């Protein structure tokens, strides 16, 4: 299972963080600092996997963002990279050519999309079409709410 997912900018700023195991806030921030310094300092030519404490960190750089997934020792690293890519593709289809700025101003939407892809560290939907369908339906419900509010 995936223990946590982090999105870090190249300057080390957190753009998204989701923990699937209980972890107190203080430890979360400490971990983020440790992990980002480890990963941001790696050369671009080396492999995308890093052993850290008892886990494996799988990371991939998309434009100016690093997507980091922390998995268990006996998990499939290549598959973890695929899951990250799956997430990125969904984001891309939703925002249309997603860039870091989209994720900064719409971080809550990124979280909603992540909630449709992963629960408790495991994948729940492998079809991008289905994910986007559900997201747009929920967005529509939010719109209805807004309209109802304005009317009433």
């Amino acid at each position, binding site marked *: 299972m995936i223990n946590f997912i982090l999105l870090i900018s190249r300057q080390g700023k*957190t*753009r*998204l*963080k*989701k*923990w*699937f195991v*209980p*972890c*107190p806030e203080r430890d979360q*921030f400490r971990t983020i600092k440790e992990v980002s310094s480890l990963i941001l300092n790696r*050369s671009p*030519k*080396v*492999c*995308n*996997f*890093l*052993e850290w404490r008892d886990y494996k960190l799988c990371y991939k750089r998309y434009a100016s963002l690093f997507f980091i997934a922390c998995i268990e020792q006996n998990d*499939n*690293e*290549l*598959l973890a*990279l*695929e*899951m990250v890519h*799956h997430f990125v593709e969904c984001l891309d289809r939703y925002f249309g050519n997603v860039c870091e700025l989209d994720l*900064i*101003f719409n*971080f*809550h939407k990124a*979280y*909603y999309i992540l*909630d449709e892809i992963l*629960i*408790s560290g*495991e*994948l*729940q*939907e*492998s*079809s991008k*079409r*289905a994910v986007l369908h*559900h997201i747009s*339906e*929920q967005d529509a*419900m*939010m719109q*209805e*709410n*807004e309209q109802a*509010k304005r009317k009433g």
Partner: protein
Amino acid sequence: MSIKLRELIRSIRAAKTAAEERAVIARECALIRTAFKEDDNQFRHRNVAKLLFIHMMGYPTHFGQMECLKLIASSKFAEKRVGYLGLTQLLDENTDVLMLVTNSVKHDMNHENQYVNGLALCALGNIGSNEMCRALAREVENMMASPNPYLRKKAALCAMRIVRKVDEIEDKFNGKIGNLLEDRHHGVLLAGCSLLTTLLEVNPSYIKEFRRHIPSLVRALRNMVTSGYSSAAEYDIAGITDPFLQAKILRLLRIFGERNVDASDEMNDILAQVATNTEGTKNTGNSILYECVLTIMSIEAESGLRVLGINILGRFLQSRDNNIRYVALATLQRVVNVDQQVMQRHRNTIIDCLKDADISIRKRALDVTYSLIDETNIKSMTKELLNYLLVAETDFKEELCSKLCMAVDKFSPNRQWQIDTLIKIMCLGGSYVKEEQREKFCRVVAATPELHAYTVTKLYANMRESLSQEALVHVGVWCLGEFGDLLVSGNAVGPDDQPISVSSGDVLDLLYDVVRKPPSAEKAAATHCLVAAALIKLVTRCPSEAEKIKKLLRRFDASLHVDLQQRSCEFLELLHSEWDPHRAGILDRMPVPEKEIGGADSRDRPAPVGGAPTGGKDLLDLNDLLDGPAAPSATSNVVSTPAYPASGGGGDLLDLLDGGPPTAPAPTMGGDGLLDMLGVPPAPAASQDAPPMVAFEKNGLKITFFPRKDADGSTTVLAKFANNLNVPMTNFVFEAAVPKYITLTMQPATGQVLPPQTDLVTQTMRCVNSTHGEKGLLMKLRIGYVCNGTPVQEMGQIGGFPLGY
């Protein structure tokens, strides 16, 4: 007026300094806090959203927790959504506040709108605590049978979490799993497989029960792998249909097929099909192949399938892609026990990976390399690993050294090679070679008498070149001490088989250099202790240098390091003329410890040969001394405590000394154990209402013993200490040691100061002679006191007790 989320983000990003950013955030937090206090319904969800952004930046936001609860309870979807997001971000399963949410979550799970259900299930699945899981298990179970696949899949993953978290109800969902596995919807299948995998990991006894689902899993997998699958387009990633589901099924098959031949047969075909048909060009395909290979290697696969798997691994190893190579090495590590020949075939590739630029790959290659070493390739592998040691990072070095030493000890073909390699490791590894390995090396050397000369010559040559490697220096110093005579005997043969001449002076010079510039400044004292021990041994082996040795030892006798000072004082004492007859015996070669040396040893000879003159075992076998201190006895073996606390008399000696008065300075007999000293000459002091005996008399101190035999066969000795000087003796300490067959208990002395011209201070000792008088009572004494500001250490021994004591 509450600003929009967007505005807040913009203003935070516009802040030019950290202080400015903090100010913006502090201001906004204050506004938000006020809004919460005023129970502002309209903008609550916007405020919580802003709070979440602030939280992600790392600022404290605990005051928002209760607001999330309020939002969740709202009827509007938009508010619920933000509320649940806040819940999962600001709280975790250990927060107490979470319990309050249970009711809302339950309510939402029964809501008519699927997305509200979805929100609730998500929350439970991500941060559900033990209590929440228990409370909501029934709802989750119901939803697993819902006609809506959206809910089924989420419920299944919630069930997975419940199984993980709550012990007792793990079998609650067993009935439903079957249906999940027969489902057509990929999301549900994925969730079902995850649930089953987790269940089987938690409780492997269920594996048998669920094996009946193998056919449906195989069928699902086959559908995906063959072309013409109906929903292929929707799940297509890089030409492969739903790689995630394929990988999940493969993993599940692995659990079923392990150690079960029938199950493995069922999945044989499909595994072969996946292995051959999957394209290995992109990462997607490779992830499937990786999972497939892992499965093939874990189950009872038939040979054809196994060959297929191994070929894939081989391909991976040769790949130019770093990720693939890393994964291949990781797999090799796992399957190393399964098939040795495969491993050997790829040995060269693996060794090349040791030199890779990528540190992750290097580390993996190192792990695999250790497992590859065996008798046939030990020499070449060691060469490679030694090369690697030169360039390895510091955190690898220690592990590498210890693993290399272990491998060498286990597999070396003969002693000489073993010693050579260990020396090489120490030359390169420096201080990373651990204590145990150094001691082991010494042990090995001690057990190989024919190589003593060779070893000491080699070490001498290496030390002449460089004194910077700590392990080498320590071991070298010890060997010089033990075998120095072989070195200067004129028979020494250099590395190129030319006779070399080393004089005693050279050896002394080398030791002097070590003293002046120890390899490690912080541990200089440890090095000096070893040098001191070596020096005293050299007195007998290189008698011409006695003066120089004395001078060198004197350097330490005022050292601040207690161990060092004690050693040098005792050794200097040994150089006094009265020890002449015994010195040779005392400083004789160390006996070979009994402990097995392993590897080459067990192959070359059946039992370790004790090359050195024996008797070390019975450290205090003082039968020879029964005739009185004047009797010379060349073989009297109050020998060195051997290097390792594990063997021989060293332990005994220490035990005896510890039985002494508690005020005795703890005889720190060498923290690293390479101590070569006898410590305390025991003084016999058994008596039995016998006439008083003078046990010791020197420099104005006179000790008289009043022995008395008790009814129970033990002996009580009263020692009286008389000070005949005109100055007091302070810090008076009296210790005694007895041979092995005697048990000695000492009472504390009545005082530690001996006033001048008195004999008031006494000390009582009790001895039990287990041989019941067959062997006489002997005792060796050690006395220490301060007189006129100078510390004095004296030794004595007393035999000549009446028989039967």
